[in-house]
């Protein structure tokens, strides 16, 4: 028997494929049985209702996309009333993504969503910390640690910290999240980018800039996932540009125990299911019997810490 399960702290997933926050919703149930994938991850919610950023919220760049959705949110009440019951019909664990502008608001939202039906909480700490200088929490180890400590006190559920690729201190931030009690890291959110329409000379996104996701982003997020897996003991969930089976395998080999698939679902809505099937076939073809045999199996030899943790290209 092939063992596709993967362990993320106390949570065991039937397979390592799950959606990335903001690229998944109840609507995908119209395409396939949502119990075929390892977990469900909601779009980030905030406590209050929010309408999100101005349109256009998406634009295409060569072989990838930028988005500036922001975090439109129905608010926590609507979420508890409508979304959690919807996912209750599935066996796959529900991961709720949350965000807030201050550590205290973050903690109180975290408490509010720590309800039955929720298996873990993913904290989107790539949003600006309005109490400090407006920098996103996950830009710095200190702010990451501070917010994660408050969140840790606010819930007994597993806490996944979702990192940002915009920091120059990836491994320091990863270690800070671990030190403050995160149960897993999601690596990572989108990378700040921009596109300008040369005909109108206007930014292609209504919000001026947005986040790069999709294939172009993969080598960057993969590097981060690898660096994080090398620097912390908690599990790392890879995320960024994963578009096909090979990408999934690459992240697992790099050290991710599971992956999140985002933009690729927009191109091929069934891709996650195909990946689950593909992993099975791949393990078989390689004479392996479990996903965990792949995780972290990168042949990086006696590589020096200087290389593993380098922060600029050589």
């Amino acid at each position, binding site marked *: 028997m092939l063992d596709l399960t993967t362990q993320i702290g106390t949570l065991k997933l039937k397979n390592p494929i799950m959606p990335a926050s903001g690229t998944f919703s109840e609507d995908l149930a119209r395409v396939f049985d949502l119990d075929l994938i390892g977990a469900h991850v909601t779009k980030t919610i905030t406590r209050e209702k929010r309408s999100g950023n101005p349109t256009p919220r998406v634009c*295409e760049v060569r072989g990838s*996309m930028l*988005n500036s959705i922001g975090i439109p949110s129905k608010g926590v009440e*609507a979420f508890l009333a409508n979304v959690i019951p919807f996912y209750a019909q599935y066996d796959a664990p529900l991961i709720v993504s949350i965000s807030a502008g201050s550590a205290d608001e973050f903690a109180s939202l975290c408490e509010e969503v720590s309800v039955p039906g929720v298996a873990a909480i993913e904290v989107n700490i790539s949003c600006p910390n309005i109490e400090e200088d407006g920098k996103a929490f996950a830009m710095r180890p200190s702010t990451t640690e501070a917010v994660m400590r408050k969140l840790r006190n606010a819930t007994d559920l597993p806490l996944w910290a979702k990192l940002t690729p915009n920091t120059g201190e990836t491994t320091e931030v990863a270690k800070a999240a671990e030190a403050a009690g995160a149960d897993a890291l999601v690596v990572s959110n989108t990378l700040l980018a921009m596109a300008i329409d040369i005909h109108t000379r206007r930014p292609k996104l209504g919000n001026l800039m947005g986040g790069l996701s999709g294939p172009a982003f993969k080598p960057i997020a993969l590097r981060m996932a690898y660096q994080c897996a090398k620097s912390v003991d908690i599990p790392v969930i890879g995320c960024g540009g994963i578009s096909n089976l090979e990408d999934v395998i690459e992240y697992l080999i790099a050290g991710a125990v599971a992956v999140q698939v985002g933009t690729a679902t927009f191109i091929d809505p069934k891709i996650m299911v195909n990946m689950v099937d593909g992993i099975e076939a791949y393990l078989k073809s390689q004479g392996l019997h479990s996903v965990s045999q792949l995780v972290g199996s990168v042949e990086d030899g006696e590589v020096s810490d200087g290389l593993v943790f380098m922060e600029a290209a050589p």
Partner: protein
Amino acid sequence: MRTMALETPDTGDEVKPIHEVDCVVKSNDRVNDEYRLLVLDAPLKILDCEPGQFFHLLCPISGNLQPYLRRPMSIYGYYPDKGELHFLYKVTGEGTAAMATMKMGDTFNVLGPLGKGFDILPNWKNLLLVARGVGLATLAPLALEARRLNRNLTAICSARSKSVLMSLDYFRDLGVNVIALTDEDATSSVENMRRIIEALIADEGVDAMYTCGSNRILKLLQDVGKSHKIPGQIALEQQMACGFGMCQCCVRAFHREGIIVNERVCTEGPVFDLQEAIGC
């Protein structure tokens, strides 16, 4: 002005499966200077469509044309009997340019049908459709549906020039009363359109109005609709990523119950109430 986020997916409507299918291209010919008609050999399961719905198309990648995201395209025609799905499109950028390179026998991946189509309520007998340019692609299936339901349809079709006025024969063959207006004849002004519509209302009467796209026409029909209490619907466009509700890319703002609400064009639309719509 308060702003409010949208509500969860319509619970009233039944939730139909969405199909992702490889179709075979039957033809892909130029219909005039600007537009092309794509005819696909399509399986029955994706031909259970409503006028106003759309598909999300995976444009081919070849050479310098490397579109990444899918492209939304209204259903121009769906024919379960002959197993055909038609799109009428204008080449405007990378994706549509890539579509234009497709040849008979090529495979083309489509996702759909998607979105909420036009309504034709039982008591709507005299229908009026006002379209400009490629908007006709979106409104054409209404003509077929009107005939199926035995309604009277008048179509005011406006375009830059006669040579890009499309679908007129198509409409006439379906018994539609066609009124063609062009910029080159100087007949397409808003004032002239208003005169024509007012005359129609005075003559046979109009029970519902349908349009899409143009801000000028939206404004005009909102005026006319308000003064004569005629309901209407509009098909809107917005940049899309997922095409069926997940990404929140495609929102537009609407007036509703005194506030402004955001709705997803791909899911709550692309067809919306005429009076609630806000131009852009």
